[in-house]
C-alpha cells in the first residue's frame, strides 16, 4: 500500500467509528462506545505512522503525493477532485491530531463514564477528529473548506454537549457564529484565488501564484488576509477569539481536544500550508505576525487574573497559538509546527489534570475554592506540574525548545520583528507565572474540605450546579452526569496522562539546536521552496535565546513561588493597588463588552425597531391593514344594500325591471 492509501485509511477509521456508534448506540453495552471510538482513532494513528514510514521511502523531491478518489465537480475548464495530499506537513499534522486525540478518547472513556450522553459523546468526538483529519489531508481548497466547516459544526455539537445547560448552548452558538465568520473569509479567499489562478488545488495554486502575482500584489494580499480571517476564527486570534474561553462550557475532554489537537491548530496549519502565498504577500504575513503577537500578549495578561481553572488554561492556549501564528508568519514553519506539537502534548495534559481536579471538586472550577490537593492527588499533581513546566518553558522541557525557537527566528528576521520578539519574551514571563499560579493555588496552600475528604478516601459529591452561574441542575441527559472521576482512581485516565507527561518532558529532543533537527529535516520537502529556508538563526543565537528564555522562565516561576506561597497576602494587595488594571484584565480587555456594544446591541436595536415599527406599523398597519381597509370601505356600500328585508329586495328588483323596460322602450 502506498502512502496515499494510508492517508485514506486515516480518514476512514474515525468515519467508521462515528457511523458505528451513531447507528448502534442503543445496543452498545456499557462503555463499549468509548472503546470503539478510541479504537477508531488508534487505527487512524497507526495508519498515520504507516503513511509516515511509506513517505520516508520516497525520494526527497517526491514526497508530495496527491490521490483523488473521484471528481467532485467537473466544469469546462476546471475540476474539483475529492483528493488528499499526503506530504510531510499533512502527515505530521495527522500524527499529532490522531495521537493526542487517541489519548483524549481513552481519558474520556473513564471521565465521561457517568454521563447519560456517553455514546453520543464519542460519536461527536470521532466526528470531530474525522473533520480535522479531513481538513489536514485535503488537497484543494474545496475539501479544506468542507473539513473546515465540519470542524466548526463538531465544535458546536461538543461545546453545547450538555444541551440543557443554558450557558453551554450560548457558548456553542457563539463559537459557531465566530467560526462561520472565518468560513466566509476562507470561501471568499478561495474565490479570489480561483479567479486569479483558475484552479483550487494547493500545488497548482501555489505554482500558478508564482507567475501570476508580483510581490505584494493587491489581490493576493486581500486573499491572504481573507485566509487569515478564517485561520484567526478557528485559532481564536484577535479579534475573533472570544469564543474560545466560552468553549470551556463543554466537557473537559472536549476542551482538551479543541485546544490540544483538533480545532485551534487548524489556523496555524492553514498559514503553514499556504506559505507560498504568504511569502508572496509579506504584508499579509506581517499582519498575521503582529496579530499573533498581540494575541499572545493579551491572552497571557488575562490568564494572570482569571480564577476559573479551565479558563486560565484556555487563555494560555490562545497565547500559545499566538506564538505558533507568529512562528509560521515570520517564516519559522518548522519552529511554529514544533511548538504546535509540544503544545498539543502539554496542553492536553494540563486539561486532563484540570479535569481530574474538577472531578475531585465535584464540578467546581473556581481556583479560589481549591487548594492543597498535592497529597490527596499525587498522580494528578505530578502530571499537572509537568504540563505546567512545559508550558512555562522550564529548561529542557518540550515547551522550552519550541517556544524559544520561534522567538529566535523572529529575532533573526531583524528590523521591527525585534519588538515582536521582546513582546514574546514578556508574555513568556507571564506564561510561566500563570502556569505556576495554577499549580500553587490548586495543589499547595491550605487543604480545602474536598482535598481532606479525598485524603480520607472519599471523592466529594456536591450538589450538581452550573459552575458559571451557580444554578442548581439535574444530572439527567443533557446535563453533566452524577459521577465524578479522578485520575488516581481510574486506570484509563492514568494511561492517557502518563504518555503525555513523558512527551511533554522529552518531546524537545526532536529539535535541540546544534544536536538534532529531526523535525526540520522531516518537514523540509514541504518547505524547501520557502524564501526563509536558508535564513535560520545560527546555533549560537539560538542557544543564547534558549538561555534568555530559560532565565525568564525560572525568574517568573520564582516570582509565582514568592507571590503565591511565601507572601500569601501579596496578591490581594496588588489587586487593590492596581484595581483598574485588574478590572481591565478580569473583564478580558472588555472585548465581550465591545462586541456587545458594537455588534450585538445595534443589531438588537435594529431587530426591535423592525419588530415594533416595520412589522407592526408598516407591514401589519399599512400593507395588511391598508388592503383590508380598502376592501372594507369598498364593500360598505354593498353591505348597506343587504338589509335583509325581503320586501326591500322585491322593490329593488321591481325598480330594476322597470328601468330595463323603460330603457328598451326609449331605445326602440
Amino acid at each position, binding site marked *: 500500500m502506498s502512502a496515499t492509501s494510508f492517508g485514506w485509511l486515516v480518514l476512514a477509521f474515525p468515519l467508521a467509528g462515528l457511523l458505528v456508534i451513531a447507528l448502534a448506540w442503543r445496543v452498545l453495552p456499557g462503555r463499549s462506545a468509548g472503546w470503539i471510538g478510541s479504537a477508531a482513532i488508534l487505527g487512524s494513528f497507526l495508519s498515520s505512522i504507516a503513511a509516515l514510514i511509506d513517505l520516508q521511502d520516497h525520494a526527497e523531491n517526491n514526497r508530495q503525493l496527491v490521490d483523488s478518489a473521484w471528481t467532485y465537480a467537473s466544469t469546462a475548464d476546471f475540476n474539483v477532485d475529492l483528493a488528499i495530499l499526503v506530504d510531510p506537513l499533512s502527515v505530521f499534522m495527522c500524527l499529532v491530531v490522531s495521537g493526542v486525540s487517541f489519548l483524549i478518547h481513552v481519558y474520556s472513556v473513564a471521565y465521561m463514564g457517568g454521563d447519560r450522553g456517553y455514546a453520543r459523546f464519542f460519536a461527536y468526538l470521532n466526528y470531530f477528529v474525522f473533520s480535522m483529519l479531513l481538513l489536514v489531508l485535503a488537497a484543494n481548497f474545496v475539501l479544506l473548506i468542507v473539513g473546515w466547516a465540519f470542524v466548526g459544526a463538531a465544535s458546536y455539537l461538543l461545546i453545547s454537549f450538555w444541551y440543557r445547560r443554558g450557558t453551554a448552548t450560548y457558548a456553542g452558538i457563539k463559537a459557531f457564529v465566530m467560526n462561520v465568520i472565518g468560513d466566509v473569509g476562507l470561501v471568499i479567499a478561495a474565490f479570489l484565488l480561483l479567479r486569479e489562478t483558475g484552479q483550487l488545488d494547493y500545488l497548482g495554486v501555489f505554482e500558478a501564484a508564482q507567475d501570476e502575482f508580483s510581490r505584494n500584489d493587491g489581490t493576493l494580499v486581500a486573499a491572504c488576509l481573507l485566509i487569515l480571517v478564517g485561520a484567526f476564527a478557528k485559532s481564536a486570534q484577535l479579534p475573533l477569539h472570544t469564543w474560545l474561553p466560552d468553549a470551556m462550557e463543554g466537557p473537559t475532554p472536549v476542551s482538551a481536544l479543541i485546544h490540544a489537537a483538533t480545532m485551534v491548530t487548524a489556523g496555524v496549519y492553514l498559514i503553514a500550508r499556504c506559505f507560498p502565498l504568504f511569502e508572496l504577500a509579506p504584508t499579509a504575513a506581517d499582519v498575521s505576525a503582529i496579530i499573533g503577537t498581540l494575541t499572545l500578549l493579551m491572552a497571557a495578561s488575562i490568564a494572570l487574573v482569571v480564577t476559573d481553572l479551565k479558563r486560565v488554561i484556555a487563555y494560555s492556549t490562545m497565547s500559545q497559538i499566538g506564538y505558533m501564528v507568529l512562528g509560521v508568519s515570520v517564516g519559522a514553519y518548522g519552529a511554529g509546527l514544533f511548538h504546535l506539537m509540544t503544545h498539543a502534548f502539554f496542553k492536553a495534559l494540563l486539561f486532563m489534570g484540570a479535569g481530574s481536579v474538577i472531578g475531585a471538586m465535584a464540578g467546581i472550577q473556581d481556583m479560589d475554592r481549591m487548594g492543597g490537593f498535592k497529597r490527596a492527588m499525587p498522580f494528578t499533581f505530578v502530571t499537572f506540574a509537568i504540563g505546567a513546566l512545559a508550558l512555562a518553558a522550564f529548561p529542557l522541557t518540550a515547551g522550552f525548545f519550541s517556544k524559544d525557537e520561534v522567538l529566535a527566528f523572529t529575532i533573526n528576521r531583524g528590523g521591527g520583528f525585534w519588538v515582536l520578539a521582546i513582546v514574546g519574551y514578556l508574555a513568556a514571563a507571564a506564561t510561566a507565572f500563570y502556569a505556576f499560579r495554577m499549580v500553587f493555588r490548586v495543589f499547595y496552600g491550605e487543604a480545602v474540605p474536598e482535598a481532606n475528604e479525598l485524603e480520607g478516601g472519599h471523592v466529594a459529591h456536591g450538589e450538581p450546579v452550573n459552575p458559571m452561574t451557580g444554578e442548581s441542575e439535574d444530572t439527567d441527559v443533557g446535563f453533566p452526569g452524577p459521577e465524578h472521576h479522578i485520575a488516581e482512581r481510574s486506570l484509563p485516565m492514568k494511561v492517557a496522562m502518563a504518555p503525555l507527561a513523558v512527551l511533554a518532558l522529552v518531546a524537545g529532543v526532536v529539535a535541540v539546536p546544534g544536536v538534532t533537527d529531526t523535525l526540520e529535516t522531516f518537514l523540509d520537502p514541504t518547505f524547501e521552496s520557502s524564501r526563509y529556508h536558508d535564513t535560520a538563526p545560527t546555533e549560537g543565537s539560538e542557544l543564547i535565546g534558549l538561555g534568555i528564555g530559560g532565565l525568564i522562565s525560572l525568574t517568573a516561576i520564582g516570582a509565582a513561588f514568592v507571590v503565591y506561597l511565601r507572601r500569601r497576602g501579596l496578591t490581594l494587595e496588588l489587586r487593590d493597588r492596581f484595581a483598574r488594571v485588574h478590572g481591565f484584565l478580569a473583564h478580558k480587555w472588555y472585548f465581550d463588552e465591545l462586541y456587545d456594544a458594537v455588534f450585538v446591541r445595534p443589531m438588537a436595536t435594529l431587530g426591535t425597531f423592525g419588530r415594533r415599527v416595520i412589522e407592526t406599523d408598516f407591514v401589519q398597519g399599512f400593507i395588511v391593514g391598508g388592503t383590508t381597509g380598502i376592501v372594507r370601505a369598498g364593500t360598505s356600500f354593498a353591505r348597506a*344594500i*343587504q*338589509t*335583509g*328585508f*325581503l*320586501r326591500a329586495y322585491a*322593490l329593488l328588483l321591481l325598480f330594476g325591471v322597470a328601468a330595463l323596460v323603460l330603457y328598451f322602450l326609449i331605445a326602440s
Partner: protein
Amino acid sequence: MDVVWFLVLSAFIFVIGAAGVLTRRNPLVVLLCLELMLNAGNLALIAFSRMHGDGDGQIFALIVMVIAACEVVIGLGIIVAMYRRRLPIDVDEMSELRG
C-alpha cells in the same frame, strides 16, 4: 278585440300583485300576490300568442305555470317549517340575510 285591452288588464293585475308583494307582511299573502303577477304575465303571453296567431306564447304560459307550481310548493314548505318552529309568520322578521 284589440290586444291592448288584454295588456291593460294584465298590467293592472301585475301592479296589484306587485303592490301586494311590497306591502303585505304575511308570507302567505305575498305568495298569493306573486301568483297574481305570474298570471298577469301569462295573460300577456296568451294575448300576444293570439295576436300573432301561433302557439308559442301558450307554451311559454304553460312553462310559467309549472314554475309557479314549483315556487308555491317551496314557499308553502318554508311557511310550514316556520310554523313548526314557532317563528313569527312575518317576512320583515326574516332578515337573516342582512350584510
